């Protein structure tokens, strides 16, 4: 069933519709935070619950929203950012100027090792870049959708992807 119909059913008092929305989107929301946090499953589940609570509160204002999935990604991302700000305080985020080039050369790293390093490094690069990388490479989201999640333009998303990829390269290889 389409998101719009599910939302309409939910707002009309169909309890099952909310469960369907939850079951349809929960994995994607948890996975997003799981990846952005560098693999913290418990945090991902807690913040996802928070995301769906926001959905419950905001449901009536979402009629104009083209996709619940996009909205949930945006809210989950914002909740994650708030969490990081509160809990990591002054910790300076890496950017292209501060990322240290890894001493290991590509040849000494095995594919499995690179994979693990990339997963870990996603939590170390600037969050917007990590989000763009996540959606583009893992969720195969088109630039347009990523731009909507980030409330930004496709051009900006391209820049984020470019910088994110560059930062990952510096951290991993």
């Amino acid at each position, binding site marked *: 069933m389409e998101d719009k119909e599910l939302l309409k059913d*939910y*707002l*009309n*008092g169909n*309890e099952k519709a*909310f*469960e369907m929305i*939850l*079951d349809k989107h*929960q*994995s994607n929301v*948890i*996975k997003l935070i*799981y990846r952005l946090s560098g693999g913290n*499953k418990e945090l*991902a*589940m807690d913040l*996802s*619950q928070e995301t*769906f*609570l926001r959905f*419950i*509160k905001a*449901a*009536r204002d979402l*009629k104009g929203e083209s996709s619940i999935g996009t909205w949930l990604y945006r809210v989950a991302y914002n909740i994650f950012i708030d969490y990081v700000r509160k809990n990591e305080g002054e910790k300076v985020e890496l950017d292209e100027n501060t990322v240290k080039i890894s001493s290991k050369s*590509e040849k000494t790293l095995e*594919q499995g090792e*690179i*994979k693990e390093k*990339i*997963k870990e490094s996603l939590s170390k690069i600037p969050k917007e870049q990590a989000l763009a*990388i996540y959606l*583009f*490479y*893992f*969720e*195969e989201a088109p630039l347009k959708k990523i731009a909507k999640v980030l409330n930004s333009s496709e051009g900006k998303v*391209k820049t984020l*992807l470019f910088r994110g*990829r560059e930062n*990952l*390269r510096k951290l*991993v*290889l």
Partner: protein
Amino acid sequence: MKCEDFDKFLFENPKAKICPQEFVEHLKECENCASLWKIQETLADIGEDKITFSLSPAQRANLILRAKKEFFLKTASSLIEDSFVVSLLLSLFILGIIASATNLSKFQLFEKVMPYIKLFSSQVAPFLKDIQAVFSSQAGSILGAMAVFFIVFAFTLFVKTLNPKRLRPYF
């Protein structure tokens, strides 16, 4: 030129796992493109990990309960809002009738109608007399008007909750 072309290829094919023949030679010479390829190839690889997550049963149950509560609260408030407006209009209408009936009594019209009402029901007639008595004083009118409003309000709420399907959806 090759570097630009390769970068374009990467952006257009985020899921590519095989390097096109035309770039194979270039990757051997260009360390920059080779490392970008490695990163992207691995990202595509991670993207293929089909892990799925779900909230714990307790978290899920909590969310469903919260959704129900929120729905109930929103429905209840819209029900009360609706009933308030309806009963306000209805009681104004009823009070209007009472007011005109009281006025009519000045012209003895009330008394003229009374025999017919008595014919219809001997119990209603004294009741109407009582209402007329209440509304003849100012304090009585205010109290009476309030009583009418609350009776109508309670009645409207009751009728509206009889058939929940006809309730206004909460948005």
